[in-house]
């Protein structure tokens, strides 16, 4: 089992989620975050015209734990769907998972997903 964390553009969330379902990947969580990367921040405007540089941009983080066999397809799907080709498309990180438990039944491991 691996945990996939994908930080993507908020406007791509809907499409990405749907594409994952199409590939049989349902379970996931979404958190709204603000992120900083190569992409330069955004400028807000004050009332007397002053520039307020905001270095953090709104992004969404999708977190999904999947069986090892599904990692590749999940990563590919996310990349494909949420890519715009412009800086700021985001990152995917993959982490090891030691165990998973379904709260409702106590099932463990991949059965819990």
């Amino acid at each position, binding site marked *: 089992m691996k945990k996939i964390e994908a930080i993507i553009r908020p406007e791509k969330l809907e499409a990405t989620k749907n594409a994952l379902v199409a590939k049989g990947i349902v379970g996931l969580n979404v958190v709204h975050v603000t992120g900083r990367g190569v992409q330069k921040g955004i400028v807000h405007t004050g009332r007397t*015209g002053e520039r307020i540089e905001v270095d953090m941009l709104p992004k969404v983080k999708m977190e999904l734990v999947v069986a090892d066999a599904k990692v590749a397809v999940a990563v590919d799907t996310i990349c494909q769907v949420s890519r715009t080709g412009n800086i700021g498309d985001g990152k995917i990180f993959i982490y090891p998972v030691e165990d998973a438990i379904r709260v409702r039944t106590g099932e463990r491991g991949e059965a819990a997903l």
Partner: protein
Amino acid sequence: MNSGDTAWVLISSALVLLMTPALGFFYGGMVRRKNALSTIMQSFIIVALISVQWVLWGYSLAFGPDIGGLIGSLGWFGLKGVGAEPGPYAATIPHQAFMIFQAMFAIITPALITGAFAERIKFKSMLIFIVLWATLVYDPLAHWVWGNGGWLRNLGAMDFAGGTVVHISSGFAALAAALVLGPRVGRGKEPMEPHDITIVVLGAALLWFGWFGFNAGSALAADGLATAAFVTTNTAAAMAALTWMSLSWLLDGKPSVLGAATGAVVGLVAITPAAGFVTPMAAVIIGFIAPIASFLVIRLFKKWQRADDALDVWGCHGIGGTVGALATGIFATTLVNPAGANGLFYGNPAQLGIQALAVVVSWVFAFVVTFIILKVLDVTIGLKVDKEQEVQGLDLSQHGEPAYSAD
């Protein structure tokens, strides 16, 4: 006694009452989330505080029997003799109606100053300051300009609904407050963005709505003069909103919503002293000039890091009120208000001189007395919360209540 006039002054009083909480939202939206509630509270509690101060001694000091042109006596303490019959200020409405209408002005004026304190003043010190300021600055100044026997009034200074008494006084008090309190932690280094501009617009809209009571109510009758003041008020506010928005657009590429809301308020400020003396076309001009003046002053002033007038009270009310008071001396015409006087453009340059005098007197008086009151309080009980409390935010540190909870 005239029931139409009475209805108009009563509803105007209600409209002006609403302006102070509206101001709380106007200001509250501009501060950071952690100070939202405390900022709204400052306006709300001033409504309560000055309502009581006014019926006890404030009204008597401001409008009571004159003592040497400088102050009213305490003869009307606790509204003694202020009853259902018309009083000396308005012949067709109950004396208490005039009193309560004026109460609302006495309330909003100190509340305006709170924008300069925002995000760092001790709640307790603020309460004490407000009572002292109302008593030592507002009440005397109101007497000078509006009280029977007041010396500026006797000189012929014209202030229809409070350019000097309300806006210059609060604006220059704000300047003093900004200087004495010093800047907020992180000011100029961290982005301090308004946490909710929608409620800034809500506040601005309710202020605009209430300002009809403020200015048109100041006619103290439901007549042609009230109507004229209503029209100039709306026109100046509208023009000023457009002007400020355009300035931000020209200078920065984007039309600011906060700017439009602020512009409307500055237009309302500037038309206040002129409302019942000028034509609608003069209101267009005033609504064009005032936001330019405020905008530029704020832009320059922002660089002066030492004075952190957090929500630009001085720039909006001090400058806007000054523009309005002087413009009254330029555009006033007896065609609109036969009981007024002509201004510069109508052949009476002297009026501009009188207006300028009233302006300077108000600047100096408000600034100096406020400065002294604040310095005394700073030395005795302290004005500013300590750094940790400021960083935590005033909602929790002063009131133990977050504005918004997660659940």
